[in-house]
């Protein structure tokens, strides 16, 4: 086949994919609005029971696990029975993958092997059905723009996630491109939604030359939506502000991959002058929930079932619990009641946006990063999202790291943003005392760089004392 024919076939395939997913997401959107909450839950429950029966029958790991727990699919009749099913842990996946967890003949049930970025500690291998690898941001795009085709999206995230999503998106038309090559891919704007920008190993200290090129490419591609890791996008925003560069006009910003904190949301909103939404997902489960125009996260009820578990029982609305997720689409490697390692706050009541799915009020970060202050506040767990409130609105901070060294001893490392705003350590200390208790001691230092974890993601808050207190 000559080059022209090859390009034409590729373009046609991408266009077909684009519209295929567009209709899929459109139908899903209608379902979320037209079906009542009860109808959605009933359909979700039926799908769950089907998956449960399948796992019990076909997956050796679940056969053993359920037998030990005395669980049979027939015994799980109502959602209240869910708690009888033991939670699936990451360690269990690691120790049983693939032979005891993966089902099926690849020829008849095609799947892809994936690997998590390792942001919750250690990386994890998993498989997902090939058909389940929807371009996850497509739905977000649809929500924000009402369209999918010909809506250019530019994505910026960690090197690992860029590599993973590039290979993931290869089938569906997205491209990881080198900055130098961006000039040659102008046509991508008309064929694809996602242009993956090359990442940086340490975005908080990325050289200005890299940032300049990044801004150049974004301006050139003129995306409607800027998508990516909030820390990466936040660094880009800071650079634009510091360098007084013209701000690329985008319709909105959608973040994923990592926790979108209040301070990062503020920064992105201030610099780009547009709304900021988050999309909650995980590599092994795909897209879990999307933030609506009222800034509440709607669970994708037809794809996942989400529980928030607090001290072994379902969290009540307004409470924070560990996210326990069941992937309803993955029959190749069923993830049933999988403890994903995150903390979520359960939403309450119907959302004014009109979607009737379950609502997550906020994602609070990783369970292992919870801080438990001493003294009068003993037993109270502070999530990374809550801790971020201490830093929110304080000038002069590009990034911070708060580490609880002992019960009442905290190390706070500040990376200054280089802007004229003054950084006031006394205000910070006062706020910290209010949050962590009057008897707490804070060692505040300034550094030139905060280094990322091995996964190249950043861990801004963690405790060396407590672990997963929720």
């Amino acid at each position: 086949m000559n080059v022209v024919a090859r390009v034409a076939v590729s373009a046609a395939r991408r266009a077909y994919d684009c519209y295929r997913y567009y209709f899929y997401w459109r139908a899903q959107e209608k379902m979320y609005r037209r079906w009542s909450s009860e109808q959605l839950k009933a359909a979700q429950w039926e799908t769950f029971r089907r998956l449960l029966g399948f796992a019990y029958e076909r997956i050796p790991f679940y056969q053993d696990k359920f037998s030990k727990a005395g669980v049979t699919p027939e015994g799980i009749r109502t959602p209240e029975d869910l708690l009888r099913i033991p939670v699936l842990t990451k360690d269990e996946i690691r120790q049983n993958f693939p032979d005891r967890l993966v089902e099926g003949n690849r020829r008849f049930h095609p799947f892809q092997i994936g690997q998590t970025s390792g942001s919750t500690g250690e990386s994890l291998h998993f498989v997902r059905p090939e058909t389940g690898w929807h371009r996850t941001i497509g739905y977000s795009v649809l929500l924000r723009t009402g369209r999918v085709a010909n809506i250019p999206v530019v994505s910026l995230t960690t090197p690992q996630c860029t590599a993973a999503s590039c290979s993931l998106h290869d089938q569906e038309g997205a491209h990881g491109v080198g900055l130098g090559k961006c000039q040659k891919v102008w046509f991508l704007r008309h064929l694809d939604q996602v242009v993956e920008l090359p990442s940086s190993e340490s975005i908080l200290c990325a050289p200005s030359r890299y940032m300049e090129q990044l801004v150049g490419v974004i301006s050139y591609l003129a995306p409607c939506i800027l998508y990516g890791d909030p820390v990466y996008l936040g660094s880009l925003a800071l650079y634009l502000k510091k360098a007084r560069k013209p701000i690329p006009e985008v319709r909105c910003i959608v973040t994923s991959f990592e926790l979108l904190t209040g301070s990062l949301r503020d920064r992105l909103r201030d610099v780009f002058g547009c709304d900021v939404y988050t999309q909650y997902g995980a590599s092994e489960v795909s897209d879990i929930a999307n933030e609506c125009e009222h800034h509440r996260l709607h669970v994708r009820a037809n794809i996942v079932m989400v529980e928030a578990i607090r001290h072994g029982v379902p969290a009540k609305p307004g409470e924070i619990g560990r996210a326990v997720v069941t992937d309803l689409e993955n029959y190749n490697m069923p993830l049933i009641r999988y403890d994903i390692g995150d903390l979520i706050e359960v939403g309450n009541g119907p959302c004014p946006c009109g979607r009737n799915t379950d609502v997550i009020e906020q994602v609070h970060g990783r369970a292992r990063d919870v801080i438990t202050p001493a003294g009068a506040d003993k037993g109270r767990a502070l999530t990374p999202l809550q801790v971020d409130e201490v830093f929110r609105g304080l000038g002069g901070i590009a990034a911070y790291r708060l580490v609880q060294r002992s019960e009442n001893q905290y190390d706070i490392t500040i990376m200054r943003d280089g802007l004229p705003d003054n950084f006031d350590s006394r205000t910070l200390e006062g706020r910290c005392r209010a949050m962590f208790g009057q008897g707490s001691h804070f060692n505040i230092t300034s550094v030139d760089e905060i280094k990322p974890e091995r996964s190249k993601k950043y861990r801004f808050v963690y405790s060396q004392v407590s672990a997963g207190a929720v």
Partner: protein
Amino acid sequence: MFDVAAIRKEFPALQRQLSGRPVIFADNASTSLKPLCVIQAVDYYYRHLCANVHRGVNVLAQEVDTLYEDARGSIASLIHARPAEIVFVRNTTEGINLAAHLLGLTKQDDIVCSLAEHHSNFLPWLARANVRCVVPDDQGRVTPRAFLEAATPKTKLFALGHVSNVTGIVSPVAEIIQEARKRGILTLVDAAQSVTHMPLDVKALGCDFLAFSGHKMLGPSGIGVLWAREEFLQSRLPMLFGGGMVSSVSADRFQVQPPPHGFEAGTPNIEGTLGMGAAAEFLMGLGMDNVRQQSRRLAEALVSQVASVSGLRAFPQNSPGDRVPIVSFAVGSMSPDDAAAILCNRYNIMVRSGVHCAEPLVRHFGQKGLVRVSLCLYNTVEEIEYIAESLSALCSVLA
């Protein structure tokens, strides 16, 4: 009688368990585990000696001098060399670089080596001279004839890997060296992968240089050996200059010590040397012929077990003949890193994935990377069977 069970007790790392199950260490081509005697030798130095070598007259320093030279003697015995020909370096890489330095190569000189070489026996030549590569045949083997055909009148040296760290195939180095000598071409043997698996006799081989590392022969890391014919050591200037390698220094001249000390500038890796000496004694205590038999037994079992797993593609696919227990393969369409990580997480099998510092060979096989299982004398046939079962399970689901 080679009592593997008794030998395994000498290796504390083999007692390690992960998730309540024993660890199968199958990454010995990267580095080997260390027996108690090696650990004790290093420990003894730190606990009881900790003096510098060849510098003092105090009791501790004298004891270190004795142990250090004893270690040199042990290592010399292992390869049937004279202690004066043993130069301590950091590793095989440094040894080969030192040999390249001693030869005083220029871009006018030709070096012939195999495409299967480790980067350590490829880049030192590529950086200094004109390299001519011999491509292994379909069975992954190189022949003396192929080397001679690649040689030109400008060829100064044949750089020979004794055992490929990717395929485990043993090259016919003795025959190649014999042919090289007839034509006045020098030879260097990279023995990094062979020293733990077979007896080595530099005199019988007839090579001019031979290099190997301590950490791959049950010894500590950061210590290795370059054996060179004395004539090269006597007539060439060292690569490094500094303390401990001179007999006299004045404002405008210096006198280099006779080899090997003239080539060991600065304080050496004393504890590493003592550990390497202990490793050499350990191997000789087992009997290198016994070690070779065990290596052959493991290689045979490993090659046949890997061949029996459907979904694996070994490189080369069919290679009868002499091998050590090292096999590299592709696991279906899986990335080698994924396969290696799953083998570790699920089955506690430690293997290596990637290009194994032999990128030209892996590319020659048409692969971006391979999974490598490499065994040592303390591995068992039962472990090989477990590895094969695990690979079968992996392939049946994912490959």
